[in-house]
């Protein structure tokens, strides 16, 4: 009888230690009100917001500070217009090809390849196919920017990962790659 009690006590002890060690639950907090922000935090869940999400899309017709309006629509005609008329607002002193390369390698190189020949890691792994080499495509700075802004066919838009200035930096770098291929 005594043995049985001992066994039960040991199992309960070990069991409780194990259950307290649950990796899928956060730990205790000492004075939790020191941990939790009074203000709304990024990605927080609060009743005041639609869908209780702090993360919201900006209302239509508004522009973030420091951005300018991109007036070409996301249509075939818009693409053609941008290809002809849209020009890089950065002058040669503002274009920073080192930063352009950094950004290009993060966002574009994964498919288009770091040399722009369409041989990125995802293409080599046969995850995404049919990525063209910049050398074979008739692109201008306007059309490059337009495609980064809206995406085209299977390519998505990168306007939320790159801001306006960064998009133009990447555009300049893509033009450099295209010139190097040809």
């Amino acid at each position, binding site marked *: 009888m005594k043995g049985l009690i001992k066994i039960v006590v040991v199992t309960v002890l070990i069991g409780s230690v194990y259950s307290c060690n649950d990796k899928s639950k956060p730990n205790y907090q*000492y004075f939790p009100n020191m941990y939790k922000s009074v203000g709304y935090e990024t990605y927080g869940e609060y009743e005041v917001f639609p869908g209780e*999400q702090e993360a919201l899309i900006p209302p239509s017709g508004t522009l973030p500070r420091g951005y300018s309006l991109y007036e070409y629509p996301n249509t075939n005609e818009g693409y053609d217009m941008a290809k002809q008329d849209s020009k890089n607002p950065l002058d040669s002193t503002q274009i920073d090809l080192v930063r352009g390369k950094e950004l290009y390698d993060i966002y574009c190189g994964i498919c288009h390849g770091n040399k722009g020949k369409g041989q990125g890691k995802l293409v080599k792994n046969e995850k*995404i196919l049919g990525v*063209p080499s910049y050398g074979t495509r008739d692109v201008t700075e306007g059309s490059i920017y337009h495609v980064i802004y809206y*995406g085209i066919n299977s390519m998505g838009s990168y306007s939320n990962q790159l801001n306006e200035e960064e998009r133009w930096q990447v555009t300049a770098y893509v033009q450099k790659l295209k010139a190097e291929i040809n």
Partner: protein
Amino acid sequence: MLLLQVIFITEYFSFMKKSYQNFEDNSTNNMKQVKYRKFSLRFLLTGLLFFLAISASLHAQDGDPDKGKALFNTNCAACHSLDKKMTGPALRKVEQRLADDQGLDREWLYAWIRNSAGLIKSGDAYANQVFNEYGGAAMTAFPQLSDEDLANILAYTAKEKEIKVISTPSGDDGIETDGGSGVSNNLILAALGILFALLAMGLYMVNKTLRRFAEANNLDLGPETNRKPLWKSFVENQFLILVTAIFFLLISGYYAYGFLMQVGVDQGYQPIQPIHFSHKIHAGDNEIDCKYCHSSARVSKASGIPSLNICMNCHKSIYEYNGATTAEYDKAFYDGEIKKLYAAVGWDDESQKYTGESSPVKWIRIHNLPDFAYFNHSQPVSVAGLQCQTCHGPVEEMEIMYQYSPLTMGWCINCHRETNIKVKDNGYYEKIHAELSKKYGVDKLTAAQMGGLECGKCHY
């Protein structure tokens, strides 16, 4: 095939010539020859038709499907798949389908591929129908593809669908050895357990037999000695009690300290996320840069939980998982997770359109600093140029993400004391860097010497 056709043609011509000569020679005196000529002409005409029909069908199959596959993957696969509607229609047996359903021949396809916009403008009915069916997505013109290239591509699309042999996870080598070693370990343990049980039983039996033997032989085993119990002598010894008490106090103090110090520390926290996202596959196997998805880490306080449109940058094309699997996470599991993404973002994979019905994914936040400490990702990421792995650990190996570092103040401070700041290519601060180095008498400045230990940097 071409050679055969040439032979056919030369034979055909020589035959015709011969018959014609016969006709000329005999026309004047023998009317039968006319009949012969008619007969021969009809024969030849049917032969010609037959030949044309054969050559047309032969023509459709020439071209090298292997070369075609390479061309297809580099030029077409961005928008077309063989068996699945993507930006453009599925292309398996496109030539046959067009011929059967629309009565359009290969020349029409060539014209479409080389300049679809021109074909649409020319008012071609089917061209306009396809253009409108796919939401007015303009197909890139491919004037650089030669007839031979296009024939190769069409040969590739004409191939029958290969039925994939579904390999069971156990067929995978890596898993087999893994499972094998697990099983053998368990087996060894079980065998050892049984061995010990047998030994214990053997000893007990030996003891029992010996006792019975002694009893049978009337041997006196001696009386049970009436010794003082161990605990009683322990209680009576006051020095031992004191030592034990100190010992227990120290031990419990140690554990109490350890317990209190880990309150609020979530190192190793590994919640189950609503969609199983494997950092190992994305950042490890496919080497996607951390900042591709967590783009705001470059420029802002929060590193950013990627919005679902970033997932869809790739998963619009990648609708199934074809990488390495384990017994726990097989292909069906990963494909199911991609389906969950589609449901959340409201993407209809069949029609390749957004339905507009989306439901946000409630990701569970892992890394969470208390409100009284301020931390901004852009500082170490963009200014110092640290690798994300410095704080987040080997994320590219994590099937399930967990918190690698304790994120305590001591941990922050320690790194600031040890890490040299990046002074290279930082011309603006050159002078102040030089002066600070002189002040501290060091070659390389650490973050701490730059003021990285000031309370107000993080607590305000």
